[in-house]
């Protein structure tokens, strides 16, 4: 008996009697002899709770987390402050432990939270319909490509190289399944997507064009002309967005994109070494019956009371099976709940204030560092610079308890000496000054 089960010896005997079986072994009579594991699993024995805790704590202690250094890492996930109210709500058993709300009469909490989440995403992106979440940012990009293929019947995808490398890699992986090809458009000398090159890459076979705002290097793209160029031949325009920049940046809906999506981690979700977080997905009204993922809708009960249900389920795998618009079943309800609680905490003014704070601190950091910019144009919360001896900086910064950012060389060989520096509301001027001092010292060391 484990500490999570409660069938005693007496229970077992009486239960077996009721079943009419002599032993538990007999219940497994259908398992062929040749397929029985005739030895114990080769795993350690169970441990007392305190020993489990201490073992996991010892592993955790070997990680240098964002409270243990001053981190300028970003590249898709960011060290934002998660307010206590998010933990308090998301750890409530009533939200933590139920399944997908298949019985709406006893799931109004989850369903209404989904409806509110969808509303918040619609407001942020300025698009009329949003789903209740997908796995994460990159897999949402792949979901959009599948939707575009079903919608247009075309199989060619075009993506700016400003789209997150994980998103482009995921598009390529999924595409080998659903049969799409991917063409990438290189960034120009200012780290922005070149409009003419993009325009010439899009043709009558293109199902969708993928943009990202700000792009992976942090560049605020000139979205209007890019969207215009993308839609010339009837392709869907998909724009990944950083949700926490949408207090200051014009939302994708205002530029007429068909789908806006992205990684939801900045909205009240932990870093968690990369997940779980959530993906969000918003679109123009006409796509509502083709969208992937769960959608909550408003209705009334038999007594006329307002209520919420999972709706438009004829898009979904459990109803439509092989004709579904996506295969997703378990998505990220709890993470999306954290997202909408966070957005309520931030509020209409706060989302602008936090955006402006990042904007100003980022501008300050870029100037203070004084390194050559890869993308000298407008940025909000992240930017890329060339560092003459990147390894020297990395080493010196690490020794000083600073993580200076994400080296671009693995994802962008063309920026071999590039470093991506991210700013959040948690990085103070003092932190930024320390980074600048370390960078200056590393530079002197190289030139000396």
């Amino acid at each position: 008996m484990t500490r999570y089960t409660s069938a005693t010896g007496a229970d077992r005997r009486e239960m077996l009697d009721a079943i009419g079986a002599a032993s538990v072994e007999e219940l497994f009579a259908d398992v062929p002899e040749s397929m029985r594991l005739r030895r114990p699993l080769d795993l350690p024995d169970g441990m007392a709770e305190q020993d489990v805790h201490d073992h996991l704590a010892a592993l955790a202690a070997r990680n240098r987390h964002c409270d243990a250094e001053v981190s300028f890492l970003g590249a898709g996930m960011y060290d934002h402050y998660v307010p206590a109210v998010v933990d308090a709500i998301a750890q409530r058993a009533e939200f933590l432990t139920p399944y997908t709300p298949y019985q709406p009469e006893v799931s109004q909490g989850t369903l209404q939270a989904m409806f509110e989440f969808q509303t918040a995403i619609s407001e942020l992106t300025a698009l009329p319909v949003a789903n209740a979440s997908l796995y994460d940012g990159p897999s949402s990009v792949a979901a959009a490509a599948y939707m575009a293929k079903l919608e247009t019947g075309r199989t060619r995808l075009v993506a700016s190289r400003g789209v997150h490398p994980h998103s482009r890699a995921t598009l390529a992986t999924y595409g080998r399944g659903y049969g799409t090809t991917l063409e990438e458009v290189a960034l120009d000398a200012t780290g922005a997507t070149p409009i003419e090159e993009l325009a010439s890459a899009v043709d009558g076979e293109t199902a969708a064009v993928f943009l990202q705002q700000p792009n992976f290097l942090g560049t605020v793209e000139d979205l209007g002309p890019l969207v215009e160029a993308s839609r010339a031949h009837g392709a869907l325009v998909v724009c990944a967005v950083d949700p926490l920049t949408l207090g200051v940046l014009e939302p994708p809906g205002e530029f007429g994109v068909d789908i806006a999506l992205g990684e939801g981690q900045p909205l009240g979700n932990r870093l968690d070494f990369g997940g779980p977080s959530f993906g969000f997905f918003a679109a123009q009204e006409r796509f509502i019956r083709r969208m992937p993922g769960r959608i909550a809708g408003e209705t009334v009960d038999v007594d006329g009371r307002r209520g919420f249900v999972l709706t438009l389920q004829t898009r979904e795998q459990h109803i439509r099976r092989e004709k579904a618009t996506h295969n997703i079943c378990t998505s990220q309800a709890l993470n999306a709940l954290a997202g909408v609680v966070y957005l309520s905490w931030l509020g209409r003014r706060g989302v602008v204030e936090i955006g402006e704070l990042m904007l100003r601190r980022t501008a300050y950091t870029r100037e203070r560092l004084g390194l050559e910019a890869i993308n000298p144009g407008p940025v909000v919360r992240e930017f890329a610079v060339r560092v003459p001896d990147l390894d020297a900086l990395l080493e010196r910064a690490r020794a000083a308890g600073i993580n200076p950012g994400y080296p671009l060389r693995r994802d962008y060989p063309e920026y071999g000496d590039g470093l991506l520096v991210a700013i959040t509301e948690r990085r103070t001027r003092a932190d930024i000054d320390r980074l600048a001092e370390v960078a200056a010292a590393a530079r002197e060391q190289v030139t000396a």
Partner: protein
Amino acid sequence: MSPAEPRTLTIFERSRDGRRAFAPPATDVPERAVEELLPAAAIRRTPPRLPEVSEPEIVRHYTNLSKRNFDLDTGFYPLGSCTMKHNPKVNERVAGLPGHARLHPLQDAPYARGALELMWRLERALAEIAGLPHVSLQPSAGSQGELAGLLLTRAYHEDRGETRTKVLTPDTAHGTNPASVTMAGYEVVKVGTARDGGVDLDDLRTKTAEDVACLMLTNPNTLGLFDTGIEEIARTVHEAGATLYYDGANLNAVMGISRPGDMGFDIVHFNLHKSFTQPHGGGGPGAGPIAVSDRIEPYLPVPRVVHVPSTNGAEPVYELRHEAPKSIGRLRGFQGNFGVFVRAYAYICSVGGDGLRDVSETAVLNANYLRARLAEAGVGELLPAAFDRACMHEFVLSGAPAKRELGIKTLDIAKRLLDHRVHPPTVYFPLLVDEALMIEPTETETRETLDAFAEAIRSILDEAREDPDIARNAPYDTPVRRLDETSASRRPVVREQHHPG
């Protein structure tokens, strides 16, 4: 609705201009104008209409919302195929340690050693449980594990110069299986079910041809039955050169007892939110790691965790490998749902190897006991088992006689259970059972809970003999009653339109 009862409000309707919960940190850098830093065309002109509320309002709103949910910590949740077992509290505590929760996904390997070691240890444990040597933790949930398995199958065959276009799925399969098949670019071919509830072997032999890439199978299947033909199934599929895929949704029945690898499966997905206690969260997060055989290994997703054992007393090294020439690539961002890995690993540490076997034995004992209780006179005639065999961790009843004799449908029984403070079983699945009720009690429930459920079912049927309208109009005692799903779908309202502040 009584006249005094207020209309349910959303957080947006509670908004009033000027209220706030967030106080921004001080601006400690020059306060330059936004117009100076961004081009005019890029600046947002009207702020998003997010709620304007204070912290107490947020807490009260969402706490009250939470009370409109039924949850596992409060009551019995025998939802078939979903494995609603207890979510241990220590798992939440260790997942929340800053070394886990506050670790950036792009932290360099030497500074993320604990996280990579945890992933490696979890991979090894899952490999042992599956009986297959290689694991990728990356897929985000079961359905993404399925897609990964199909893409692996495609890569494997293409590498051998073979083009195959069809994937077989039994008619009892979860809906995710055929949906994944289509997304992976294959054609779905359904295989029938034999009279004993297993795969129809004749049908399988007829359909297993050179153009078949894979058979996706759940074993025990969605009827809760272990497919006794599994040896013959594996032989048939492998002789045709196809892969055999194990949908791990029902793994909770066989841990430490029989391993998918030993059954002949090439690819397995796990649902860490089912067998390994990640809380379901109202529909996620989960995680869907996959385990594969040697021949499939070269195609696994990247990045992969690499372990270099210690030599000469030095510390072992854990790294991420981003390049593998034959890999299918990446399925999502970063390394996967690490927070879920922490909870699953803590669970495996807690119960241990022997404990996992005990878990499965108890899950099967509980299911068979509840099945026996529901076969008793007064219940069994109205809700007979769809297949009269010993079940594994779950079983399927048919409500067809109850519908015929009492005039109440399975849906009515489910709704009336809500008044008994029990979450209903999965209903109307699998599709081949008329008026199906699919019941999975799990190992963490006491016998008393199972008895109480059996009595609740009995009382619903007894009551219906007197007055079937009671069940037909249920539930009564829930935050809302039956909802109009048809009009919700015809005229979808998917966001709040009312912003008072």
